[in-house]
């Protein structure tokens, strides 16, 4: 196995477990908390995020290294990444609606939500800061997405299990979900010795 593939694999695993975008970078919390009420919809959102993160990481890498760097417009990366993500999500939504209606009804309604999911932008920005190669960036996108999927599914399952527990009124809903996410994040810190990426 070449060094490039190996490092891509390391990045993939690290992004899922030790550098989880939700639980160690605290990105994408809005949809993480609001769509985690039911396990089925959280899996739907997780899959949609995984797909968009993986593909936009690749797209944004190409745009960054082949358009922004040569033109000296690196400082415009925030705006450009957002435009690329928004347009791509729109495109995927249209294509899915026509070509894969079943998938559209499972993921389609979550796609517009993802446009404004900061975890997707976060992945694009981190891959630049960490100077990943194309392959590494795609692996990081995939890992980020899977990490989101794991985190949101676990949270949804936990929320389902405590649905009949007596939560103090002030903490019901988002309050207890934030506390549970915090405890989950602590758990994930335990994995951080496993692999480290910078």
């Amino acid at each position, binding site marked *: 196995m070449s060094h490039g593939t190996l490092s891509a694999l390391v990045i993939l695993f690290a992004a899922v477990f030790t550098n989880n975008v939700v639980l160690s970078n605290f990105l994408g919390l809005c949809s993480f908390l609001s769509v985690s009420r039911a396990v089925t919809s959280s899996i739907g959102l997780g899959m949609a995020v995984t797909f968009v993160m993986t593909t936009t990481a690749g797209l944004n890498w190409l*745009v960054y290294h082949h*358009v*922004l760097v040569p*033109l*000296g*417009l690196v400082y*415009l990366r925030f*705006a*450009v990444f957002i*435009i*690329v993500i928004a*347009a791509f999500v*729109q*495109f995927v939504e*249209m*294509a899915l*609606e*026509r*070509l894969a*209606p079943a998938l559209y*009804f499972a993921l389609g*309604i979550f796609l517009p939500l993802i446009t404004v999911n900061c975890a997707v932008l976060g992945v694009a920005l981190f891959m630049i800061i960490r100077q990943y190669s194309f392959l590494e960036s795609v692996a990081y996108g995939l890992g980020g997405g899977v990490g989101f999927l794991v985190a949101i599914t676990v949270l949804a399952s936990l929320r389902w299990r405590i649905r009949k527990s007596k939560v103090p009124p002030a903490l019901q809903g988002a309050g207890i979900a934030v506390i549970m996410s915090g405890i989950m994040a602590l758990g994930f810190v335990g994995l951080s010795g496993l692999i480290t990426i910078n």
Partner: protein
Amino acid sequence: MTSVLVAVGAVTAIGAVLAALLEMAGKLFADYGDVTVDVNAGSRTLTVEGGGHLLGTLREQGIFIPSACGGRGSCGACKLKVTEGGGPVLPTETPYLSATERADGVRISCQVKVRSDVAIWIPEEIFAIRSWKATLAAIRILRPGMVELRWELPAGERIRFKAGQYAQLKTARYGKVKEEVFRSYSISSSPRDERAVEFIIERVEGGICSTWVCDHLQVGDTAEISGPYGDFVLSDTDREMIMIAAASGMSPIKSILHALEEQGSTRKATFFFSARNMGELFHLDLMKRFEETLPGFAFVPTLTRPPEPDASWPGKTGRVPALIAEMIGDRVKDAEAYLCGGAGLIDGCTAALWAMGMPNERIFYDKFE
């Protein structure tokens, strides 16, 4: 300087490429071609352009599904049964559908996209709903901020509605308002008057339609009107009637009173009209006329903000439920009620009527959202 141009150029170019891509995708994916809509198991078959929402697609075909919000998915009124081709129920529809409705295939038609051939079922009376380009024949100012508009249908056209039903008015673009909106208004004129409809409209601060009506419309202007809609109608029993309204909620009640007058009805009816002060009252002469022509009718305006001591107010004061208890008393149990107005009035009065022993199925209301 060049760096600014390069930056602007690059962002524009990226945006343009992406926009072109989306445009192509729209052409490629969003073109569904012609699809057929089967209405009521073959009683009508429509060929329509696919890709639009069911509500708008049917409207283009001259079938008007009642909708209070005009297709924004916020009222849930445009329900109809989709028996084939509707796809799964969307999360935007679930709040408006009960479990039985879902099992029955009922959908919110402004949310269902027509992607392939669909089969739908709609009640026969919907076919009676039509649309006209009506001309504004008169504007009556009832009091400051309250107008009554008379819209005449094109020559030879008639609208057949039941007293209490409503119609939709489509606003034109005006001033800074760039969108056309649909608003629902109860018809205030007599159902015998089939050549025109009248609406009582109150000015709402910042309201798109009421601002248009109050500030921009002139006699002779035209607008699209469709109707009749709604099941808030006069029953054909002989029960005593309790009518309750505030502000422009007088509209359907007035239409019902016209209908009673034309039937020569002797039904006992009391109309409680709630206003804050004397300045909010209107149509007093007309109500006086109804009291003379309808032997069983009494008009009871009531002021909820006590009038000034020096104002000569001979009438009632206080809230409607207390007046019902005082004036109708035990007869409430056998009466039926017609309520029209804002949520506060309706909810308060229906709760009171219910507590006084009126069964739910005899309480009819038209609540303004």
